[in-house]
């Protein structure tokens, strides 16, 4: 975040707990802390990449930003204004400004709707548009995502995976949003198609000044697309900073292990292999103190009792007791 500018979206101490119910009266017997006290901001025209393994809370973060889930704690600010204080009209405006592209373009497009109907649906539900205006908009959006205009009258099954993802992107742009939430936008696509979609997303960001929340498990793709990377582990941000800084010189032991586990792009590209033992513990009973300490090679007695706070270490923020507090 740059000083003095208001980020498009800002999260402050955002927390989401899901109750776990069991027994006869489905009493809550515990909580899964899916997202625990995370803070971030995304400026206009920038990308925040979120990486982490399954269960780290990246999809819950996306759902909170999309207002598909309500936070149990903390706050979300849209252009500087707290979402909780939004009135109905402002919430409607927020929903228009924040759109999503999901992983599987085979599941996210209704097979019984023509492409024109798929793309105009957000327009019809959100604004008064004449059919002529809607048609113009569809043609314009198809041009923007690089599909032929005649696609408008076809059905989703007539398109390949990459083309479908272009349609999903066109739909997400229909309401001229400010922020796109991209949840694994290329992982369902063929390798030769991924670069097409990543390039398209980059071009659109520059042309339209969009902000992205980019979530993926492909570390190289996230590093390629993002200005800032946040690394999550069991609902907490363990490291956050400028993308190349985090990717090239990770500081947190988890980030180091994660990036060393990324597959090389060349046989001579040997990273020092840190193979993490064990698996991500259940978020139902996260370990006390630093949540990573049971798998950490550098764990100290302090790590199992005290939760480390994010602090500035060589140009990025790290939550780890290895780095003494200034």
């Amino acid at each position, binding site marked *: 975040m740059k000083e003095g500018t208001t980020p498009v979206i800002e999260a402050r101490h955002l927390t989401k707990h899901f109750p776990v119910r069991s027994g006869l009266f489905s009493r809550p017997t515990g909580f899964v802390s899916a997202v625990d006290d995370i803070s971030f901001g995304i400026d206009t025209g920038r990308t925040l990449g979120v990486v982490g*393994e*399954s269960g780290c809370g990246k999809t819950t973060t996306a759902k909170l930003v999309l207002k598909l889930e309500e936070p149990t704690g903390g706050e979300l600010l849209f252009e500087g204004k707290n979402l909780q204080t939004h009135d109905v009209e402002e919430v409607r405006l927020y929903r228009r400004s924040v759109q999503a592209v999901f992983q599987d373009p085979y599941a996210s497009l209704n097979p019984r709707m023509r492409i024109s109907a798929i793309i105009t649906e957000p327009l019809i539900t959100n604004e008064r548009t004449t059919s002529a205006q809607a048609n113009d908009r569809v043609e314009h959006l198809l041009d923007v995502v690089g599909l032929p205009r005649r696609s408008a009258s076809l059905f989703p099954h007539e398109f*390949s*995976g*990459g*083309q479908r993802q272009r349609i999903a992107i066109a739909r997400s742009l229909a309401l001229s949003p400010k922020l796109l939430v991209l949840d694994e936008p290329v992982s369902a696509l*063929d*390798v*030769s*198609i*991924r*670069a*097409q979609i*990543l*390039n398209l997303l*980059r071009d659109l960001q520059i042309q339209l000044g969009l902000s992205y929340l980019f979530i993926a*498990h*492909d*570390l*190289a*793709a996230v*590093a*390629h*697309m*993002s200005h800032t990377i946040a690394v999550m582990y069991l609902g907490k941000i363990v490291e956050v900073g400028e*993308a*190349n800084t985090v*990717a*090239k010189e990770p500081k947190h032991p988890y980030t180091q*292990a*994660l*990036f*060393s*586990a*990324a*597959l*090389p*792009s*060349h*046989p*001579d*590209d040997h990273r020092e*292999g840190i*193979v*993490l*033992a064990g*698996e*991500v513990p259940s978020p139902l009973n996260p370990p006390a103190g630093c949540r990573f300490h049971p798998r950490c090679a550098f764990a100290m007695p302090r790590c199992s009792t005290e939760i480390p706070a994010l602090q500035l270490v060589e140009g990025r923020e790290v939550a780890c007791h290895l780095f003494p507090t200034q």
Partner: protein
Amino acid sequence: MKLLEVDGLSTHYISAGGTRVTRAVDKVSFSLDARGTLGVVGESGSGKTTLALSLLRLLPPAARIVGGAIRFEGDDLLAKSDVEMRRIRGKRMAMILQDPMASLNPLFTVGDQVAETLRAHEHVTRRNAWTKARDLLAAVRIAAPAQRVREFPHQLSGGMRQRIVGAIAISCEPRLLIADEPTTSLDVTIQAQYLSLLRDLQREHGLALIFITHNLGIVAKMCDSVVVMYAGRLVESGPVRQIFNSPAHPYTKALIESIPRLGDSTVRLTAIDGQPPDPSALPSGCAFHPRCPKAMERCRIEAPPNVEVGKSQMTACWLWAP
């Protein structure tokens, strides 16, 4: 002698009326040394899984091996009867599939399933098979094997299930292990664990490995040689380092350049235009020509021959044809 030699293998899918023929694998040749590691790379529809299933002769009823030869440890696999093949599968060559939940039976314990393969191929008592199953779980680095052996697949995590599948695959000490997208459903750190486990098993048991994958990263990390497939045909093959350094075929080159590199976000990715062709309606000539930046008139008409372009590097491209 090579462990595995595949020569001009063609596997076609024939529709019910016999009217439509899909050339899923078309005249593919390659070989693999004992203890070697081969990567077969391709996108969906490139025929890589059909190729793997052809090696094991586990094809669906609509598929036919219509030509070529598969020689494994000197035996001609295409001449074997179904009974003889059953003795080879699981014993001399084994396979790991992509989704461990789908390849394990949810109604049987892990021990039963590991012991089943042992009992099918070796004369062991039930008790000994169970003891061996427990040792195998320890061999694939599962903690508390004595307890896990009595558990059901749903009680295990994805990474552990894939280890169990690995334990079944190595139970009869095969010479060749075929892994079809073995880590696609796993997280990055679990993927790294699994790949290093496979490498250790390969070293300890003298296995040869074939990785069927869409991921060039796995090839770069694990394999000595690679076969690149496109639309059922082999477009390039050779030693991994040589192919990454000097890919001959425009498809291989584009594929390597299209992967983002860690810590290098400034360069624009080289995208391959268009999309992979429908395997039942392939373009004429070289199937890659509609997407190829270097396509010539000839590419549209005639399929390219296999040309040797370097030391044990082959490509099927008119750019290299004499």
